[in-house]
């Protein structure tokens, strides 16, 4: 809502408070003023001129040579290219030395050999937005009404030196979508009176009902409909002051009748509609729900198909307007219109909202109906419009109105105690302070001891309960005056849940391992949504995505991380180590909400270690990535419960991928991205993993129990085993551990050889076995006995030969 500072003074005395101060006070009491604009700021030297002579430029077809009286001693010559400039017009002249928007300075100039001492301006050149300029002057200069005084400041006459406050209204404050509504707000803030416009009724003896009748078939949608009738109007421009006020509020002037309906919309917050009676098509206004597939051509010349969810104004047979949204083209007020019906009605917000949404028509009118207009102003707004039309369009207002009025208006009555207000705000206001606030708001106040009974005017439909009154008290008392305290109450333990602690541990571990946390989007393309998904399940699509790229909920984080790798690789950032913890979403049959789980994913590529001046480089490989997740499992106390299984997964390197199992269940995977996928994405060799954090967090973890520090030495025996290429080191390790019995404490691999000195199809793996007994020093015999068992087992179960 744009509020003209000058216009506002029609309704409330603003003496002693300039626009900026007013803006600050309004903001502090609840309606945010987003800006105060003075369009004439920085402009100067534009005066009203009178074109006393106009002739064709001797050397240019499209230019005019004008002699313009600008109130100076002598007229000045101005060359003007506007097609509509003519002798006798009053126009805006930017004189030599003038400054126009964009710091455009006017200088004396010569145009095709003729001197020009200034410029005759269009409204756009003076800073008006094109969409606000009346169609009459859209492509030429602006012509003032004849009664303006030559030599006067044209910026002032056009309302540009006014200051306009832009109010950012929250949905509850639709009461301030009108000048009168703002006046009530400002009146309450300043403690000043609100002055209403005076309506002088001058009505003919002929009655409106002699010409027109009203029938409402949908009374819930439209409990109040008033049709005023004005005869013999003459369509023409509205007065300049009205045009400038409309433009200051962001509405384009059209003609006197339309401008007046818009003016009332701004003044009262009540949208009106003017019909051309002679084009209306009947003498009866019927308001009803539209029929299925009924059609109407609206003012914007679009044909629209209606449904029974829309409310329409009809002439008994055909729709002539979509109620509260837009009128029809057939009954539009045109230059030759003489008889007018003015509609002032109360339409229910829901039905207007539906039509406005379905037809994509958001107008000043629909916005106000949707939020609820003040039922108490409907009648008066119609009267005021009729009076202004008589005044500025020369018509005769017929007596009374054709109307249906079944509106029940019950102002809200709410009781509240002083204590309630003070308790909820933490304040210690007095009865007098609170009473004064409600009175300034012009609410009805009855006071019984310390209980207020408040009658809320219908214009404030947002106030229905105690809490609403508390807010009114708070905002006018001033939030700056509310003290700052901390809640006093029973103590509560502040802590993270077990899951949250584990998630933080996971973050710390991955960061400690050198990974940076990324955060990516949950919405992705259909193709990427299920790529690398840990579980083969259906994905979820948005009903109305903004783009295909963000249309689907992800089943896996990896594709998003690979996008991050791609982004960075494209910027010569080759060594990357990233992780993300975030939700993935699986469709669940029979359940409303998806199965939403947090996963941990990582992507590592480039060099893992680089100590360049010492000539050391270690590129990332499978085992680097595996080491990272091993550290994670170790931190979570799950190392013993995890195993790995060679696996083939779509889009992963077939030989370098493993499933990660937790107590036998697959909870993730790790491996290299398939080289073809890498190539398609244009990324370097990249290793990824994705694990279910949910599964990891739910596994049981053994408590920490101290083990005695060994007092006896341990003994180590090394063995090198020759096995088939396909034999897994992990399997051999399992065999060793099982066969080694109680004395075998630790098995580790210290060498792997697959070179040419080996027999074809064979490899050698060297293990180091540590034997130990906490109760004694082991003898050579003890160890040999245990070790023999190990050797036997690996030979038998893995076909392993001792390497000589």
């Amino acid at each position: 809502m744009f509020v003209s500072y000058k216009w506002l003074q029609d309704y409330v005395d603003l003496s002693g408070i300039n626009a900026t101060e007013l803006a600050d006070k309004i903001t502090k009491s609840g309606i945010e003023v987003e800006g105060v604009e003075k369009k004439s700021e920085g402009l100067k030297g534009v005066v009203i001129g009178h074109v006393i002579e106009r002739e064709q430029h001797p050397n240019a077809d499209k230019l005019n040579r004008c002699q313009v009286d600008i109130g100076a001693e002598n007229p000045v010559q101005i060359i003007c290219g506007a097609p509509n400039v003519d002798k006798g017009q009053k126009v805006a002249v930017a004189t030599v030395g003038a400054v126009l928007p964009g710091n455009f300075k006017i200088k004396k100039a010569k145009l095709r050999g003729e001197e020009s001492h200034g410029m005759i301006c269009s409204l756009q050149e003076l800073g008006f937005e094109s969409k606000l300029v009346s169609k009459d002057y859209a492509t030429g200069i602006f012509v003032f009404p004849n009664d303006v005084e030559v030599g006067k400041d044209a910026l002032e006459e056009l309302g540009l030196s006014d200051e306009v406050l832009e109010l950012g209204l929250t949905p509850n404050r639709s009461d301030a979508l009108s000048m009168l509504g703002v006046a009530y707000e400002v009146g309450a803030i300043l403690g000043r009176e609100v002055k209403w416009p005076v309506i002088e009724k001058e009505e003919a003896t002929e009655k409106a009902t002699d010409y027109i009748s009203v029938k409402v078939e949908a009374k819930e949608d439209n409990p109040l409909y008033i049709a005023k009738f004005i005869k013999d109007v003459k369509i023409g421009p509205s007065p300049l002051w009205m045009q400038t006020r409309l433009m200051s509020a962001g509405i384009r002037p059209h003609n006197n009748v339309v401008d007046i309906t818009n003016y009332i919309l701004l003044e009262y917050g009540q949208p009106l509609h003017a019909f051309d009676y002679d084009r209306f098509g009947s003498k009866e206004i019927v308001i009803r729900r539209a029929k299925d597939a009924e059609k109407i051509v609206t003012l914007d010349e679009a044909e629209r198909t209606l449904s029974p969810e829309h409310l329409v104004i009809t002439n008994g047979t055909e729709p002539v307007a979509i109620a509260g949204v837009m009128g029809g083209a057939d009954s539009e007020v045109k230059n030759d219109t003489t008889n007018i019906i003015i509609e002032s009605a109360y339409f229910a917000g829901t039905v207007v909202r539906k039509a406005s949404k379905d037809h994509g028509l958001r107008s000043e009118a629909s916005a106000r109906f949707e939020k609820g207009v003040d039922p108490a102003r409907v009648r008066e707004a119609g009267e005021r419009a009729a009076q202004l039309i008589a005044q500025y369009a020369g018509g005769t207002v017929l007596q009374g109105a054709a109307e249906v009025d079944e509106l029940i208006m019950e102002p809200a009555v709410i009781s509240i105690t002083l204590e309630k207000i003070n308790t909820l705000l933490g304040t210690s206001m007095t009865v007098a302070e609170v009473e004064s606030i409600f009175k300034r708001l012009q609410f009805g106040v009855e006071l019984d001891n310390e209980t207020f009974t408040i009658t809320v005017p219908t214009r404030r439909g947002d106030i229905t309960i105690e809490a609403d009154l508390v807010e009114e008290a708070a905002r006018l008392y001033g939030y700056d005056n509310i003290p700052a305290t901390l809640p006093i109450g029973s103590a509560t333990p502040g802590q993270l849940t077990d899951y949250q602690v584990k998630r933080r541990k996971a973050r710390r571990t991955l960061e400690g391992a050198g990974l940076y946390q990324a955060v990516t989007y949950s919405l992705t393309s259909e193709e990427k949504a299920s790529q690398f998904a840990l579980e083969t399940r259906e994905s979820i699509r948005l009903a109305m995505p903004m783009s295909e790229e963000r249309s689907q909920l992800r089943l896996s984080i990896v594709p998003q991380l690979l996008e991050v790798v791609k982004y960075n690789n494209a910027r010569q950032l080759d060594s990357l180590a990233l992780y993300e913890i975030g939700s993935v979403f699986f469709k669940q049959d029979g359940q409303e909400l998806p199965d939403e789980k947090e996963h941990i994913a990582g992507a590592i590529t480039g060099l893992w270690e680089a100590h360049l001046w010492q000539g050391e480089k270690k590129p990332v490989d499978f085992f680097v990535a595996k080491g990272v997740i091993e550290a994670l499992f170790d931190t979570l106390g799950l190392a013993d419960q995890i195993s790995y299984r060679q696996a083939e997964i779509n889009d992963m390197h077939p030989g370098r991928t493993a499933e990660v199992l937790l107590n036998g269940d697959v909870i993730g995977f790790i491996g290299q991205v398939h080289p073809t996928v890498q190539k398609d994405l244009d990324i370097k060799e990249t290793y990824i993993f994705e694990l279910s954090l949910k599964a990891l967090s739910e596994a049981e973890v053994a408590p920490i129990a101290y083990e005695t520090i060994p007092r006896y030495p341990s003994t180590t025996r090394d063995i090198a085993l020759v096995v088939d290429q396909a034999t897994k080191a992990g399997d051999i390790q399992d065999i060793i551990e099982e066969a080694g019995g109680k004395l075998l404490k630790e098995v580790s691999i210290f060498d792997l050889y697959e070179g040419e000195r080996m027999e074809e199809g064979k490899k050698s793996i060297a293990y180091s076995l540590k034997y130990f007994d906490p109760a004694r020093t082991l003898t050579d015999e003890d160890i040999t006995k245990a070790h023999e068992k190990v050797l036997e087992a690996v030979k038998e179960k893995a076909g392993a030969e001792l390497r000589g």
Partner: protein
Amino acid sequence: MMQERLLELQEEALQKVAAASELKELNEVRVAYLGKKGPITEVLRGMGKLSAEERPKIGALANDVREAIATKIEEKQKALETAAVNAKLATETIDVTLPGRPVNKGNLHPLTRVVEEVEDLFIGMGYTVAEGPEVESDYYNFEALNLPKSHPARDMQDSFYITDEILMRTHTSPVQARTMEKHKGQGPVKIICPGKVYRRDNDDATHSHQFQQIEGLVIDENISMSDLKGTLDVFAKKVFGQDREIRLRPSFFPFTEPSVEVDISCKICGGKGCSVCKQTGWIEVLGGGIVHPNVLEMAGFDSKKYSGFAFGIGVERIAMLKYGVDDIRHFYTNDVRFLKQFNHHEA
């Protein structure tokens, strides 16, 4: 005679010790003077010719001489050894200004950094961290928060619907509704709810279709607006610095009444007015208010007995202000040159 010879030998030996510049040379001196075939031993062999009186004297002298030589040799040996070690170490000198071996080290995303900081602050004040699903039912996202289907304020949150009843949550408030429901009308409730939220916005420098929020909720007897003000003052000072002030301005949210917008004093200009705060001296950082009685009642709390406050913080907004980030898209592009900047502890 013998006495003189011994002293002569001592003098001679000590000179050679002093002159020795290598361990080998020193060892030769040792062998030459103190060895079994050395001159002192020879002198002693001639002692038989001496009188019984003289014998012990010469014997004692000979021992003194040996001792003196041996001591000097020892001293010299240590000195030579030290010199040898020093000489060797001198060749081992390195350039200590060369960089150390890099230790791989990652860090939190700046948004998580803010979230953890805020979580820890509120945990310290007795709050727990509550979380909920990112895909929500219309009921928890809107209706339970006093936003029935026809409510005009739904205009403010254009949403990503999946079906008519399911959508990407537009705020973390549904977690509040779910938590309140779990409490079955029993206070106190003290929670903080961080999480991702989604709105139908085109991504640009200041808008993101996905962003993060942290909401707080306290329900107890006699919770007031002043408690909200005090709590947010603690928050602002912790996150933005001890010299920051807060200001409440009336506003509107369907789930709180009264509702407030909260501004903090501008760090850049100290409240005088600059381009960052649009000349106002204040920057809007969050919204909140007193929990709407309808919201309390819908979740099973007696609004006559209990009252509460709630507030919501935009994590990106906080991070942008705190670290001076000028484009919200940086948080989701994950350029490592951006991510690596959030790597150290700040006081």
